[in-house]
């Protein structure tokens, strides 16, 4: 794995069918606003429908140097050459790792120390940690700020805070040990998503520069396998 976070600010896309902005629209606005990663999250899309969209967004991300992370579909990420894939606890992280090529990033959701250990053993490059409960991730157990700190201290790989992250809460998550943040409605649901992404980017940059106890420690972690 890389010692530093694979990304600091990730925009998660939303589905037009669920009343959100479309994936392309969210991704392009977020990229224009300066995010360094986009997670294509299209629950319910079959892989063959997702592939062309993932290919286009991979190209869009490549243009700004950002990473495209495909949610739930490592085989799609592998086929289109995306930066990586993210899988939940319901999916088998070993199988996901096997589907990705060696240079691709694997993110795994983790909510407790056992899950951290299992995900790292499977070859996760970063862990997604739900800090605050949200409507979109109701079933996921939110670990809270203290829990984030505990998992961060125990994890050899960087953590990315997801769930309820906004311009107001991002500095807290970064200070508590997250190496990066992933946001859904803070960008996809903003009236002006480009401006929202730009604002978040500035906040994340400032937090990472100011707070030696937060993101910076991640890069001091010893590299593993």
């Amino acid at each position, binding site marked *: 794995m890389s010692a530093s976070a694979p990304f600091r600010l990730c925009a998660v896309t939303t589905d037009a069918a669920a009343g959100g902005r479309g994936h392309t629209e969210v991704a392009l606005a977020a990229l*224009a606003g300066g995010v360094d990663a986009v997670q294509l999250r299209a629950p319910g899309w079959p892989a063959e429908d997702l592939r062309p*969209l993932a290919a286009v967004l991979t190209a869009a991300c490549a243009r700004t140097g950002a990473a495209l992370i495909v949610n739930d579909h490592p085989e799609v990420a592998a086929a289109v050459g995306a930066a990586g894939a993210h899988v939940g606890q319901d999916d088998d992280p070993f199988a996901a790792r096997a589907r990705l090529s060696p240079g691709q990033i694997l993110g795994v959701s983790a909510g407790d120390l056992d899950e951290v250990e299992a995900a790292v053993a499977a070859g996760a490059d970063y862990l997604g940690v739900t800090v605050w409960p949200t409507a979109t991730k109701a079933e996921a157990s939110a670990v809270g700020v203290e829990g984030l700190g505990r998992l961060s201290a125990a994890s050899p790989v960087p953590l990315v805070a997801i769930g309820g992250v906004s311009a107001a809460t991002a500095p807290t998550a970064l200070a508590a040990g997250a190496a990066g943040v992933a946001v859904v409605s803070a960008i996809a649901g903003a009236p002006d998503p480009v401006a929202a992404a730009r604002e978040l980017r500035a906040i994340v940059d400032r937090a990472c520069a100011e707070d030696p106890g937060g993101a910076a420690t991640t890069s001091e972690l010893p590299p593993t396998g």
Partner: protein
Amino acid sequence: MPDIETVDVVRIALGLAALGVAAFFAVARIRFLARLVLAAQPMPERTQRLGRRVRYLVQHVLAQQKILKWTAPGILHALIFWAFLVSQTKSLEAIGEIFDPAFSLPGFPAGATQTGVLGFLQDFFGLVVLVTIAGFAIIRLSQHPRRSGRSSRFAGSNLLQGWYVLIAEFGLLYTAFVLRGVREAKGVLPHGDAAFFSTWLGGLFDGLDPVTLDVLTTAFLVAHIGVLGGFLVFTLHSKHLHILTNVFNVFFARHPKALGKLESQTIDLEEMDEDTVLGVGKVEDFGFKRFLDMYSCTECGRCQSQCPAWNTGKPLNPKLLIMDLRDHLYAKGDAILDGSAAAHARGEDVGERADVDVLNAMLVGDEPGQPDAVIDYDVLWSCTTCGACVEECPVDIEHVDAIVDLRRYKAMMESSFPPEAGAMLRNIENSGDPWGGGAPKRLDWAEGLDVPVVEDRLDPATEYLFWVGCAGAFDDRAKKVTRNVAQLLDAAGVTYAVLGPQESCTGDSARRLGMEYLFQMMAEQNVEILNQIGATKIVTTCPHCLNTLANEYPDFGGHFEVVHHSQLLSQLIAEGRLAPHTDLDQTITYHDPCYLGRHNEVYDAPRAAIDAVAGTQPVEMPRSRNHSFCCGAGGARMWMEEDIGKRVNHDRIDEAIGTEPDVVCTACPFCTVMLDDAAGDRVSDGTIGEGQVRVVDFSQLLADAVLPHQGEDGQGGNGHRAADEHSGDPTDAPAGQQ
């Protein structure tokens, strides 16, 4: 009285000085313009197929083919152009005369036949120019913006420059004729009596002493060279530059014309990295042909006279767009050439500069009315990509390609576009069609019909794949057309099949909005399916689908023979396979859809089909065929609000109503929607009576005449025949319909 030797010395000194000053300024400017065009982005395809380019150049520059389309100014221009070529020999003779009073051009010795012929042509065209100058002056006075405001094609043009050209041409002519008269009086005119007018002028100077004649020569030579040099330097700094750059602009033009396929800069998604710029965000991102376009605009205003945006009160004017880009390019030129524009773009400090405002300017605004934007937001997004400007431009400027390149940058790099178009993009991404109908409903139009649907492979015995298109599948009016066409093909014994749920949007609207990502995604999907099923011949009712399938999909590996239903149906009529007979005694006017007409040059097929319905009385609108006026839906305008000026579809329906028709026929589902809505508005405001004018696809007339049981719903554009019509989420309805 000075002696002849002194006069000779003065003449040589002043003549050389005038030449030197002109040459100094001219060379500096030519160097600037040439370096700038070389600094533009390369366009490799424009330097291929040179033989064809030379042929085109001869037709369009030497033979003035395109400019002659506007008869009166065209003939004047052709005459003054040929006169310009001939007059160069007069000016060369004058320059030679500085040194040698008896000078004649190499190959044209005094008294030789060819010298006489040249002398005749010089005098003849000299007189022709006098007439053309008067003609142009009359045109400029009678069409002055002072009198007709924005409807004048010179609105916004540099009017003084136009007058300067005419006055300078007169000055050149006057000084040249005096010089030639004096030469005749001196007995050293090499052309003999064939130069009939100069010979006659010579009589006026008879009897003057040699020194006086020499003083006259000197005075008029220096004046001639002064006017010539001044004119050259003026030309290099003005709209008159086209006389020097148009040869290049026409030579590098897109063939056969800059319509149909969109040839904005190629975007290869596979090869994308952090240095990739999508579209044009800075003027120097344009390809070199775009720079030549800017150099070559003569501000004649033929484009704006045809533009649907400008003619309905919107801020877009293709001429002013090109002029604004040109003025910005010239202002930024030094910074582009010395590298400080690139440094500034990288965020480096470029020190104190006089042109810092130019460096800081946005090329296109993010909202209407931003003063530091070179091109206003509303200018960019008003374009319907109808191509009237490109069709009209006598110097082959490619406005539509430029506009889409600007849109691409805004849409993909900055995610900035009219927000209401977002619904269309979301629907294409999510449902595969702009309406948001979804694949499962793609066959709703066929309810009750026995329509073959392709599963894995198209049966080789099937003649055509019928590409229904999203409008044809989801818009109520267009669904009726789809049904009619399917039944007409059945009636004529043509075998066809449809893709049904496997069909998706071609991506035309997304591409013309600048969203190349989404377009390429749709193109890849559709080409894959079409190749998979083995499609070769495709028929479609939608000119936008036709244009994309036939002209743009070859770039994605899809090579199909695509015909419009007007072409197929008129062919079936000609072959006797469809025999329409009615006693329909109605006046019919046909509206040429931009993407069928100008973009794909299908003008006669729909007219032939309409004519075949016995009893119809065709009547043409004032703006028809390649001069047709857009319905307002192209260029993704279908999906945007239209709240500036008069609605384009209202302008067009008013023109159609002016022909007092019973029926307005179109051949495009988007045109049908726009014009039918506009006709409805004109019923509401009382301009026409209910049912007085119906708007239908031309195929409706054939369906009425050929198919049984059409009577009950054949009379209205809104007959609801198809069962279970889909009506999408109202928020996703096309903005153009609201």
